């Protein structure tokens, strides 16, 4: 970036731009970072702003100009500030300095603000130029406050510069030592578990009460022989069986009923889903008809 190098050659743009290029108390000119940032700018990683004698962006420049009004930032004349800025930018352009875009954007915006401020009040749109000016002023105040705070912070007695810590501290050392704790029961229990875990296992299949299909077939055919009426399938179950056996009997009886129906010896009926399943012996005649 050409500006940086030209400035280094003593091409002091600020010299007459504002007539008061002397650095403010908070910003000594020899601030070491200027070098750093110039290098940064050369490296191109900071292309977004361009340094003009150490200003960082338009707001920074504006703040510096505002300070030259030598009044409280709350009292500054925005119009005067705008003029100073625009003059500054014009000069830079006359000198064919390459200005970063945001300086020009700010210049355009300030030019607009200036004209709006000068127009009769009732022709203003929203937001009013006064409001825009106020916002700018507030921003400058905030930046100014932080700049002063930074300066006061840096001026404190700092460790390593004004204040020193002990040069050769012995250092504290804590050696950690683990005391392991356990007890006999844990040992015994752990051993039991190892044994239990690794012991060969024997699996038992428990003997559950079942009614086989054969016995169900016998049972159902025998009971069907007694009557011609419909009977619920539940009536075929052994009356006092334990629940497990009942379940098995129900399943077997159902299969037996299907088998009998297939053989044409019984018919099955159900009025609807989940309704009781009924079964009765098929009359001989019907049976023969079916067979035929």
């Amino acid at each position, binding site marked *: 970036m050409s500006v940086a190098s030209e400035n280094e050659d003593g091409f002091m743009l600020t010299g007459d731009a504002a007539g008061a290029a002397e650095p403010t108390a908070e*910003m000594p000119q020899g*601030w*070491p*970072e*200027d070098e*750093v*940032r110039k290098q*940064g700018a050369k490296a191109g*990683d*900071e292309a*977004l*702003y361009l340094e003009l004698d*150490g200003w*960082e*962006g*338009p*707001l*920074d420049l504006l703040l510096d100009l505002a300070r030259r009004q030598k009044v409280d930032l*709350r009292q500054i004349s925005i119009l005067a500030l705008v003029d100073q800025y625009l003059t500054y930018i014009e000069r830079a352009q006359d000198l064919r300095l390459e200005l970063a875009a*945001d300086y020009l954007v700010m210049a355009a915006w300030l030019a607009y603000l200036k004209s709006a401020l000068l127009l009769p009040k009732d022709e203003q749109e929203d937001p009013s130029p006064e*409001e825009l000016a*106020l*916002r700018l002023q*507030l*921003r400058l*105040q*905030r*930046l100014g*406050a*932080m*700049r*002063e*705070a*930074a*300066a*006061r*912070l*840096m001026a*404190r*007695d*700092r*460790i*390593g*510069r*004004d*204040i*020193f*810590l*002990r040069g050769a*501290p*012995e*250092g*504290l050392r*804590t050696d950690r030592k683990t005391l392991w704790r356990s007890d006999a029961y844990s040992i015994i229990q752990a051993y039991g578990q190892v044994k239990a875990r690794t012991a060969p296992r024997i699996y038992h299949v428990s003997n559950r009460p079942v009614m086989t299909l054969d016995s169900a077939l016998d049972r159902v055919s025998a009971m069907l022989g007694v009557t011609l009426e419909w009977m619920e399938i539940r009536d075929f179950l052994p009356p006092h069986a334990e629940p497990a056996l009942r379940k098995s009997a129900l399943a077997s009886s159902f299969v037996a009923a299907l088998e009998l129906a297939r053989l044409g010896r019984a018919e099955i009926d159900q009025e609807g889903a989940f309704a009781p399943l009924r079964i009765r012996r098929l009359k001989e005649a019907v049976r023969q008809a079916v067979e035929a």
Partner: protein
Amino acid sequence: MTDDTAPDELERGLEATLFASDEPLTVEQLSAHLGDLEKSSIREGLAALQEHYAKRGVHLVERGKRWHFETAADMAHLLRREKEQVRRLSRAATEVLAIIAYHEPVSRAEIESIRGVQTSSGTLDVLMEAGWIKLAGRREVPGRPVIYATTNDFLDHFGLESRRDLPGIDELKAAGLLDPVDEAFEEAMGAQDCEADEDASEDAEEDAES
């Protein structure tokens, strides 16, 4: 020839421990180190020691709840010439540091809205490397930006007992200068009707958003 009352064992222990330690110590650490003493007696001992050293060439100070010995500020002229160990910060870095310290926790966008320029990532890196700022989570707004805050080392380095001791922070707060522009703007517009600048916001909110 000073003629002191002999310090008690607790004071001697604290003195020895703090002298020997290569980092500042909290009351808790001191207590643990001295055999789990009551924190209240540790605090008493520290206060006594602090008083003892107040007039000496070395002071006992508390920074961010941690204690250490350091040379008295008025001895700087003796020590400075040979021992300048402080890295010099760029102006951008000092500004960013101040903004973080006075506004913390604060996002990069918030820093930039105050400074009016982009912050190079190098600037934040330098401050992180110096151990003065740290990531302090994310702000729960769209984009969940990372937010920054200062560290105990920051307090140490600048001789601050806590953030409350930041130079001028009370005045800045009272003047509303730590409030975001939008807030201050509303304030100012509201105040204009009644009458000029009543001393603006009292309870300055720090949850800035530009």
